[in-house]
């Protein structure tokens, strides 16, 4: 069986193994984890013809550098605008290339985004916890965070010259600054004026940003009643308001329950693009009805599925019109 071995020359914070996620265990306090940007993760796998849930490496703005010690394998990098260097080659993320023994693959932050995904044409060997290789950041359970000098093995490697070259970056994988959300489930803890301020103000992404959530800077939204809410279940995307009125948007490794009121919940399809907004970026919230949110989810799923199917089926250069660029293609 063919395999490739990498040595981690460098890994920034929050660089970890992720698959599609660990679903169905929130009742045991276990969040789904999985990729911060599920859309880009799915694209990286599709670009290699992989199953959609195959484990890869989530690379944070801290970057990563891997020395290929042996073997040869095609890889895809998708998500954000990162810079990928392999041997003498330097390209942007949204690319498929082949790495051989002796190459160093380095992924560093570039013009935009916070997260990119490294998928392998092969099986990344990593610990599984409760049925998934996704890393739960706070505990390190699952495939785990990458550490300098660690060896990584990829088995059943494939070399796919026919897939090398740029991957089209759809507009829906770009950062999104207008976040559609459904009010509640604790919007009743806020005055009408405060609710209006929530949807009419600009908020700024801060660097208090990890896989659990991101704090926003902007007008405080103090709840009207004391904080004695019995802890209750939380969904990824919840906009939690602490007692001093500060907003936190909860992300992949979110706590599964909490007692701070949630003024709204960002719909899933906007959350994946929101996490590519950088600290300092301005965002705004738009309230939509639950049924509109359902209809958007259906439209988005059809669009995403059709894009992934075309990408999976491709062999040979994707037709993007501008080779080597990662400019958006039509939605």
């Amino acid at each position, binding site marked *: 069986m063919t395999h490739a071995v990498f040595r981690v020359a460098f890994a920034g914070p929050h660089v970890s193994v992720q698959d599609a996620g660990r*679903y*169905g*265990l*929130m*009742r*045991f*306090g*276990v*969040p789904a984890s999985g990729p911060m940007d599920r859309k880009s993760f799915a694209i990286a796998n599709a670009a290699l013809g992989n199953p959609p849930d195959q484990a890869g490496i989530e690379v944070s703005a801290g970057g990563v550098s891997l020395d290929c010690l042996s073997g040869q394998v095609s890889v895809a990098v998708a998500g954000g605008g990162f810079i990928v260097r392999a041997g003498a080659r330097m390209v942007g993320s949204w690319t498929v290339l082949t790495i051989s023994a002796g190459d160093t693959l380095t992924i560093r932050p570039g013009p935009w985004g916070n997260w990119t995904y490294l998928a392998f044409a092969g099986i990344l060997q990593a610990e599984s916890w*409760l049925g998934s290789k996704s890393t*739960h950041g*706070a*505990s390190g*359970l699952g495939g785990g965070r990458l550490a300098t000098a660690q060896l990584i093995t990829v088995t059943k490697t494939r070399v796919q010259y026919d897939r090398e070259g740029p991957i089209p970056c759809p507009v829906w994988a770009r950062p999104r600054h207008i976040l559609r*959300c*459904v009010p*509640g*489930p604790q919007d*009743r803890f806020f005055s009408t004026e405060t609710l209006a301020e929530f949807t009419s103000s600009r908020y700024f992404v801060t660097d208090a940003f990890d896989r659990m959530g991101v704090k926003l800077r902007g007008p405080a939204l103090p709840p009207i009643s*004391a*904080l*004695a809410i*019995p*802890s*209750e*279940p939380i*969904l990824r*995307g919840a906009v939690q308001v*602490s*007692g*001093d009125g*500060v907003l936190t948007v909860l992300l992949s490794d979110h*706590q*599964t*329950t*909490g*007692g*701070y009121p949630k003024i709204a*919940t*960002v*719909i*899933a399809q906007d959350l994946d693009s929101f996490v590519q907004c950088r600290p300092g970026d301005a965002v705004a919230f738009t309230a939509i009805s*639950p*049924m509109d*949110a*359902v209809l*958007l*989810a*259906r439209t988005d*799923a059809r669009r995403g599925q059709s894009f992934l199917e075309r990408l999976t089926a491709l062999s040979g250069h994707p037709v993007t019109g501008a080779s080597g660029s990662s400019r958006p293609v039509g939605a």
Partner: protein
Amino acid sequence: MSADAQPTPAAPIFRAVAERAVLVEFGTIIDKPTHAAVLKLDQALAANPFNGFREAIPAFVNLLVEFDPIVTDHASVEAHLRGLLDVQTSTSRHPAVRQVLVCYDADFAPDLVAVATKTGLAPEEVINAHLAGAYEVFMYGFAPGYAYLGGVPAPIRLDRKPSPVRGLPAGSVMIAGQQCLVTTLIMPTGWWVIGRSPTPILTGDPARPFLFDVGDSVTFRRISRAEFDRIKT
């Protein structure tokens, strides 16, 4: 939904959450009838799932039901859940009694003095009140292995701190309102930390990864710092 109506076990309130969930509320404060209604619907749903059901997360006063929005929607899920409210389920579980060790040494109890000050008690009285509580595992939540124990005695019930504090060590024994829990990870929290426990909740045993089942009774037993250190080494 009416803003002023109060949910009850007999007349729950259904709230839409994002594009993919319904939160069923049976009350606003932690009590046995409310929690019993949560568990009853949870069990009925497990026995009668709808098409597009993803998962249900039971909590103190409510049940969050997540669904696949490609397959169904909030109104259909609400209708299904309403139909389950009258379904009879049999519960024959005999809850176990679990003991958790706790050391109240000052090094482990950064908030003990603050809790004493806020409640008008001496620190030793806070400890005795905590030990006297009759606790029951109401749910898991927040993070892996975080078992929420209802039953903190009235004299030491406090609201959460206004803002979470980061970096509290695993094993912290903490309280907020009627709730108590023993942490399993280094996590941020807005709760009051009054001690530390050497009893593992994440057991490391694949056959039984968590110490408690929901519904178990829990008692705390006080240990000295010397005992704590002996157990941890």
